[in-house]
């Protein structure tokens, strides 16, 4: 079970004066159950890429296979794909519309054709998974705080029980606590539901803390692909394309230049702390 992208190419408005080459022969294999981060500056093609993964956009050329099936085959049911690959857009709370939170989360599964009871079961499970307190479930979604609204919106996608969950900047505009809560919940669902998760983010610190694989997009191409440690080792190249490494990685490089034998590939606070303590303990 996996998703394979084979030389996926996408042009906006092809053949016109406004033609823009957004994806250039992107080939990727997304293994089942991975927790993947996608970074890239604005306009690098990351949003275009993720919209290909659930068939919202169709490649100008190239192929995408999900579980061995060609999603562009004329007999392939894209509706099914969209139920399996859940996409949470930026600022998803703008898409809430029902009179109560619970009804809003039921909308997806009901639309999929489940009975009222089954839909409610799914909604129940999804709201539990995002950790929204039960006393709020029958309130209007519009009375919640920003972080809570966003959780409801994510629950709406989770209620579809997707095999793959794609989140486009799920923490933009949230305060630090709200950010940690959402990312912790996503990490937990990844573990417990064995779901493939793709996290698009602008925060290098967040991706370093959570993901196991990091894909860097630049000018419509995959520029780097590896573990956060491997990717952030190329911090100079990342800077050239308007990105950066986590703050601690820079710190470790500066300490190394001063002659300390610290681990320059540390990408999280924990790793940096352990390495510094070890270096100074050994002195």
């Amino acid at each position, binding site marked *: 079970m996996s998703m394979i992208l084979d030389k996926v190419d996408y042009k906006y408005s092809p053949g016109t004066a406004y033609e823009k080459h957004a994806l250039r022969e992107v080939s990727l294999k997304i293994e089942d159950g991975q927790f993947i981060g996608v970074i890239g500056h604005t306009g690098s093609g990351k949003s275009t890429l993720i919209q290909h993964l659930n068939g919202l956009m169709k490649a100008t050329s190239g192929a995408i296979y999900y579980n061995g099936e060609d999603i562009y085959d004329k007999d392939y049911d894209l509706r099914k794909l969209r139920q399996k690959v859940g996409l949470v857009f930026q600022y998803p709370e703008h898409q809430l519309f029902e009179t109560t939170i619970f009804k809003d989360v039921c909308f997806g599964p009901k639309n999929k054709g489940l009975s009222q009871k089954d839909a409610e079961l799914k909604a129940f499970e999804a709201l539990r998974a995002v950790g929204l307190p039960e006393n709020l479930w029958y309130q209007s979604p519009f009375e919640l705080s920003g972080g809570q609204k966003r959780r409801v919106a994510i629950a709406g996608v989770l209620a579809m029980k997707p095999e793959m969950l794609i989140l486009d900047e799920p923490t933009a*505009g949230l305060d*630090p606590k709200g950010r940690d809560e959402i990312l912790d919940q996503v990490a937990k669902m990844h573990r417990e539901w064995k779901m493939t998760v793709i996290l698009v983010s602008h925060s290098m610190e967040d991706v370093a803390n959570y993901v196991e694989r990091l894909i860097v997009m630049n000018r419509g191409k995959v520029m780097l692909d590896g573990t956060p440690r491997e990717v952030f080792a190329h911090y100079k190249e990342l800077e050239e394309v*308007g990105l950066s490494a986590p*703050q*601690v990685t820079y710190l470790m490089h500066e300490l190394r230049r001063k002659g300390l034998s610290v681990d320059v590939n540390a990408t999280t606070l924990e790793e940096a*702390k352990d390495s510094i303590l070890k270096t100074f303990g050994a002195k």
Partner: protein
Amino acid sequence: MNFIEARKLVHEYIRRDEEGNVESIQTALDHVDIDVKPGEFVAVLGHNGSGKSTFAKHLNVLLVPTEGTLWVDGKDVTEEENLWDIRKNAGMVFQNPDNQIIASVVEEDVGFGPENIGIPTEEILKRVDKSLKSVGMLEYREHSPNKLSGGQKQRVAIAGVMAMEPKCIVLDEPTAMLDPNGRKEVLDAVERLNQEKGVTIILITHYMEEVVRADRVYVMDQGKVVMEGTPREVFSQVDTLKKYRLDVPQITLLAHELRQAGMAVPKGILTRQELVEALCQ
């Protein structure tokens, strides 16, 4: 004299039902005292719903106090005849640049404000030049705003405020929707306006890294001011900040944890440079 002086400022959002009866009262500002001197760069921190945006909206009288007093540039905000003076002198920049840009050419957008208050055309052109230059966007004056990046749009929005020649700019989470590059562009522009033009800056944010550049920081929680001081003073209290659902820059946090593990690292480290120096002594 303080440019901004808030004394026991209270603001209540009152919700009414269809008959006009009060349904609920939410106290968004609860006896807030905040002072800002002319030319100061002050940051207001707080989590979502702490009251910081409500405070910002009082500064150019988009909201008026329920109780207490607020003076902006020596003028009482509750006196209606002061309204236009205050709005001219305290410009606002909001979160979403797309909601603030109205014209189809950058220079027209920047010139809209001064034109609206009847400034002569020649003077408008001068102001547009000057404001676009001050945010590093002069070369885009004839471009269409919708082709710009988020950071560039936000700088055009700031230029639009600058063209009114305000004494103070209030920025309400101006970088929340931008990528790291855009965020840096906007903050650099803001810092330059503060240092070179002496514009008073009120920056509302929850990105801790942005606060490091401010002269002073206020921390708000549940409508109250709960901490106040220089960034260094505020960030040396890591555990208190966490209690208010905020966190500190990653480097400050690392220094704090190293200190707790028994290393001789001073309190209140803000930058990488400082930590490198502390560790390499």
